[in-house]
């Protein structure tokens, strides 16, 4: 008999309970989720562009681009930056392990890549902020 019930696999005594999950597992869950989110994003992105670009001339495209400076879109952009950078940096970590680097210090490697990610994410956000609100609007 297999106990696959949600309650037993994700309960307080299981490794999926947040306090029981360890660094490597968190990293993997994050990587997988961001990977899937990115796939979804690619399709969204394409349809986004296509609705615009299929229209004649390109006026619509520019109009569409204007909307990207709305707060909601900025928030989305921020999220995307976080997702991409996390996925990319952890992906780099995974590639390092595949090359045989740092397997025994996996937690340290994780925190190093996360530190770099944090810097990149902040940088990315500032850049977006600057692009969207070049005059420094609050």
């Amino acid at each position: 008999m297999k106990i696959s019930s949600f309650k037993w696999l994700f309960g307080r005594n299981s490794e999926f309970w947040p306090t029981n999950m360890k660094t490597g597992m968190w990293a993997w869950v994050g990587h997988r989720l961001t990977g899937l989110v990115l796939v979804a994003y690619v399709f969204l992105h394409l349809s986004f562009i296509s609705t615009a670009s299929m229209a004649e001339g390109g006026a619509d495209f520019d109009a569409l681009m204007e909307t990207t400076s709305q707060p909601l879109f900025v928030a989305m952009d921020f999220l995307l930056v976080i997702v991409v950078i996390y996925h990319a940096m952890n992906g780099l970590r995974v590639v390092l392990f595949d090359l045989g680097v740092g397997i025994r210090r996996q937690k340290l490697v994780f925190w190093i890549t996360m530190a770099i990610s944090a810097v990149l994410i902040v940088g990315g956000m500032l850049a977006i902020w600057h692009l969207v609100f070049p005059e420094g609007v609050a």
Partner: protein
Amino acid sequence: MSEQRVSTSKVAGTWAWAFQRISAVLLIVFLGVHLYAAHFMDVGAETGEEPLITFDEVSLRLDQLLYIVVDYGMLSMILLHGLNGFRTVLFDFDMFVRRKKLIDVTLWVVGIGTLIWGIVILFPFISGAGG
């Protein structure tokens, strides 16, 4: 008693894995170039003050072969990496392993379809500025 089963298919294992790593590293490069090109590079003087991406700007960029290559290359890389990754996720589950053939075919169709779609989308930009 218990039969010693030998692992199932070894058609794509190694290559799928290797490709995921190689495309990952390439993606970092592409992404860097793409972001730089899209947001930080001045293509023409008339857009200098305009931070937002505009149709004209994009068209201008896409006039140059390099950008066409970068954008299409990135798109296909993303698709290959993303769908290959998605395939990995699916095959972590018994129920999808059992439908391996179907999934492989579907993913190829979706991938190539999307690529064509992506290519077509950019036509207006390419022709837009050129014409």
